[in-house]
């Protein structure tokens, strides 16, 4: 029986995956069209944008770009060619890094993904734990403490929080590195290298993650209180299960659902937030690349980051949907 159920769940997950992938296509198309509109809105020609600040004066290169992007064509044909180029992962060439844009971005992507994953993990762990404590000890001093802390971190700008963490833990106490992803000069590979990266990861993770921890704590608290009043919880208690067991196995699991929903909605915000945090901590991720490209008006990279960033968000959203389905067996494919 259980095997049959597991098999049908697996098939349902596959169906969900397929449906989400199909839905992702118009979404990505929308991102690309918005990108294209921005290019059209910009002062100067597409060619100027694609070569700005790169000192491309070689007529052959300019002619090549002219041809690639079909600048003499009508706008709709240009859009088609732009989409076609992106489909082949041709985001243009970055003269600043002297490599294709896609390559420049993928070099920086892992660092950003690491920061995102660690921040979300921290936010979930701290937020869910704080929310559970607040709801179990509702209207006690613990509840108030969680509320006050959540209010504080929900209002603090992440970049400012990051700087204050540096002042306290790096400058005053000397416990943490000021920035970067690894000690300059290196500490060797292997476990020492991994620990070194983790050491550098702590402060940026706190600066980015605590804002989301504050949101999750508030949502978790109210959701726990709400679920605890539902009938099935009373039934479980009436069956003779202990309060703790009911809280953990019945209330917690159902109360997590709104948190997971919000997590999915906020994926783009987390990615965008890491841009600012990376600038504070000189973290060598996409944010640093974006900031550098924005300052040098390296448009192909900026636009490429927007497209690939949206792609990461869509992928993360699909993952969140699968988690949601796993948590809530009632969800079937509509």
């Amino acid at each position, binding site marked *: 029986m259980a095997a049959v159920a597991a098999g049908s769940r697996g098939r349902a997950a596959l169906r969900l995956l397929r449906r989400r992938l199909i839905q992702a296509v118009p979404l990505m198309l929308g*991102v690309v069209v918005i990108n294209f509109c921005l290019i059209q*809105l910009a002062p100067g020609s597409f060619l100027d944008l694609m070569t700005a600040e790169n000192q491309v004066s070689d007529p052959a290169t300019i002619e090549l770009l002219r041809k690639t992007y079909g600048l003499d064509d009508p706008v709709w044909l240009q859009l088609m060619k732009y989409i076609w180029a992106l489909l082949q992962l041709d985001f243009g060439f970055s003269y600043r890094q002297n490599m294709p844009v896609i390559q420049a971005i993928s070099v920086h992507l892992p660092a950003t993904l690491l920061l995102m994953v660690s921040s979300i993990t921290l936010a979930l762990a701290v937020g869910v734990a704080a929310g559970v404590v607040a709801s179990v000890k509702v209207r006690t001093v613990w509840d108030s403490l969680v509320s006050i802390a959540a209010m504080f971190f929900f209002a603090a700008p992440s970049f400012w929080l990051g700087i204050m963490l540096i002042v306290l833990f790096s400058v005053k106490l000397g416990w943490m590195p000021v920035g970067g992803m690894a000690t300059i000069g290196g500490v060797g590979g292997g476990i020492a290298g991994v620990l070194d990266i983790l050491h550098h990861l702590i402060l940026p993770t706190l600066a980015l993650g605590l804002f989301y921890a504050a949101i999750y704590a508030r949502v978790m608290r109210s959701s726990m209180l709400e679920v605890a009043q539902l009938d099935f919880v009373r039934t479980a208690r009436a069956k003779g299960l202990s309060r703790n067991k009911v809280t953990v196995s019945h209330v917690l699991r159902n109360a997590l659902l709104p948190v997971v929903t919000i997590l999915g909605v906020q994926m783009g915000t987390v990615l*965008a937030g890491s841009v*600012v945090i990376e600038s504070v901590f000189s973290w060598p991720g996409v944010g640093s690349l974006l900031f550098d490209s*924005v300052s040098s*008006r390296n448009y192909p990279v900026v636009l490429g980051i927007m497209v690939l960033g949206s792609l990461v968000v869509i992928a993360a959203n699909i993952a969140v949907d699968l988690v949601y389905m796993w948590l809530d067996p009632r969800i079937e494919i509509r």
Partner: protein
Amino acid sequence: MALPRASTFQLSRFEFPARFARNRGALVGAVLIFLVALTAVLAPLLFPTDPLRIVGAPELWPGEDPDFPLGTDSLGRDILAMIVHGARATLLIGLCASAVATLIGVTIGAIAGYFGGWVDEIAMRAAELFQTIPNLIFVLTIVVILGSTLGNIVIAIGIVSWTSIARMTRAEFLALRDREFVQACRAMGMGDGGIILGEILPNALPPVIVLSSLVVAGAILFESAVSFLGLGDPNVASWGRLVGDGRQLIRSSWYICAIPGVAIMVTVLCLNLIGDGLNDALNPKLRDR
């Protein structure tokens, strides 16, 4: 036309302020925001000279010189004067961006909720699209391509902030569009535009207004991040830019960074408290959640 209020938020004119005032946090928030707004309005009277003018010795700590209660920055500019003038820029950008977001969100949400069908489908896909694009990256892209002017920043923040307002407006319209008073208007031959603007919208607005107070808070955080990165309007010294300017000196004078950040945090905190208070006052049922 005197028709009964159909919103789920049925409160008398007197009940509402009393409920709001009973929420102590919201009251404190409202008072503080009023003070911040007052300072912003009175900034030219309080500090009539240019706040970016050098007036004293550089890097005076707060309290070191009674003339500069919050100290001076690396160039010897009065931090208190910069904070007071920065309040103008910060609040103005926050309010305008929130107004842009509310205008876009209410328009799209109302049309989607009222007409339903494929119109609704398209509108919700658009909302999904704008939630997918990493918001700050989008703002930075707009600002860098179209230029770092105040107007561009306000519009860019508005464009990334309208989705929650559209969803809320849509939900309200969905709940209201088939109520008796709307059907009565339709039976009387009233046009769609008249029903949307004159009948449903006034009933749908209260929760939307609550949400836009939270959008102001979000917009202030957005603007401060853009300015912190040095991409704000170069003619405007908002709080975020002050934090960014002080960044180089965190080893010797970290207060230069800390003070404007506290100003941002307190303002955002108060706006959130007001939003929570309004929410509680409008939905008494949800208060204990």
